[in-house]
């Protein structure tokens, strides 16, 4: 450590100075982040406990294989979430560069990097909004508990991420599926089939024939806890990103108004930076627990 010479013989605990050699605000930010780490840790560990306690869990490579503007049938596991991860790492770098400019008392530099960090945060939130929308309006077909097939989105109540059904099971289930569910399933298929079919006018037998000819994939319903954990934890993290963006906007405004130049130091940027890096740190673990393993 470059500061070893200063530390020699310093009585850290005898009063008159911070034993942590940091301002009150910075130490308290660290303690807040530590408690927040335990909150996130508790959520993720609870998710792990439930995941360990069931025999089958949703396969992330199957659930998260979509990418904007690539169409319904694209299979791109890990692609979109890697984009989100890189956005957050990049915004972390611009944040640490803003802190660095603050040490040099360079107001213009701080403003530039704060704006870049805010843009990164907004880009991440937009990605998350797209992903949630995609899952909540999903077009996957699953077998319900009454043995019929239905289009089932991913929500906190149910999801279609169980084991894939064999072809014969799908054919048998179609026979007992009521008309409105058949129309809905057929409605998800016609953009894959090319020519548009008027599914509303078809009879049950015609619908079943149409569905079977387009090689329908269907599965059992997935573990009920999946949606709640996914939306709960990524939502809680997204809320942290959102509040981080708000904090950064306030810091940008205060920088522009010259508050930190008047004060003689940019320590507020450091504290906001600690929070922003923590958001990135949590994402590293969310990325691990939901998408990679």
């Amino acid at each position: 450590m470059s500061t070893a010479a200063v530390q020699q013989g310093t009585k850290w605990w005898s009063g008159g100075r911070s034993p942590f050699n940091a301002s009150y605000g910075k130490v308290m930010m660290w303690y807040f982040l530590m408690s927040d780490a335990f909150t996130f840790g508790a959520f993720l560990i609870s998710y792990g406990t439930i995941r360990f306690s069931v025999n089958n869990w949703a396969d992330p490579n199957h659930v998260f294989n979509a990418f904007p503007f690539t169409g319904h049938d694209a299979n791109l596991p890990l692609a979109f979430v890697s984009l989100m991860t890189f956005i957050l790492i990049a915004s972390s770098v611009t944040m640490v560069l803003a802190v660095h400019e603050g040490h040099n008392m360079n107001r213009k530099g701080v403003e530039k990097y704060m704006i870049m960090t805010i843009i990164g945060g907004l880009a991440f939130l937009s990605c998350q909004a797209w992903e949630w929308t995609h899952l909540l309006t999903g077009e996957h077909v699953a077998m319900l508990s009454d043995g019929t097939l239905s289009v089932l989105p991913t929500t906190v109540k149910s999801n279609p991420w169980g084991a894939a059904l064999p072809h014969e099971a799908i054919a048998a289930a179609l026979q007992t599926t009521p008309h409105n569910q058949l129309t809905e399933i057929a409605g998800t298929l016609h953009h894959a089939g090319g020519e548009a079919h008027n599914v509303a006018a078809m009879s049950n037998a015609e619908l079943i024939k149409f569905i079977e000819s387009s090689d329908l994939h269907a599965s059992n319903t997935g573990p009920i806890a999946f949606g709640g954990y996914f939306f709960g934890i990524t939502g809680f993290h997204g809320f942290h990103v959102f509040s981080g963006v708000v904090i950064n906007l306030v810091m940008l405004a205060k920088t522009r108004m010259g508050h930190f130049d008047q004060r003689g130091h940019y320590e507020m940027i450091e504290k906001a930076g600690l929070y922003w890096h923590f958001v990135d740190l949590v994402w590293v673990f969310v990325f691990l627990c939901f998408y990679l393993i």
Partner: protein
Amino acid sequence: MSAHASSPEITFHAEHSGTTKRIWKTFWLLSALTILELGLGLLIYNIHKGDNPNHTLVLAFKGMVCILTLAKAYYIVSVFMHLGDEIRNLIMTIVVPLCLFIWFIAAFLWDGNSWKTLRNRYNGMPAPVEKVEPAAKEKGAKD
């Protein structure tokens, strides 16, 4: 070193180097670790796709991904959050309480696993019914 005058309780200010070389080095390191993780993730995906996935192999790769994640966390906290530049007292007051996670993770994953074992052993079994013989009437007892 800048003209800090932040708080009188601060004994000395950490030396901040004039260049951003270390920041960019850490950025490339984090990117490389993420790409490595993605590579392992795709490897796991391809093993899973096969007819007979080797579960030990999958578990080993998942363990490697976890270790890479811990490495990323270390670099973010140490370099980006500057915890590595703080004095030992501050580092310890943050890091020591976090050791609770070792027990936290081990105990609860163990619990989940035991839950699964019990579920698989007892699910589908009829619930045990306790059979109690009606007590024999004692001689001379009144009804």
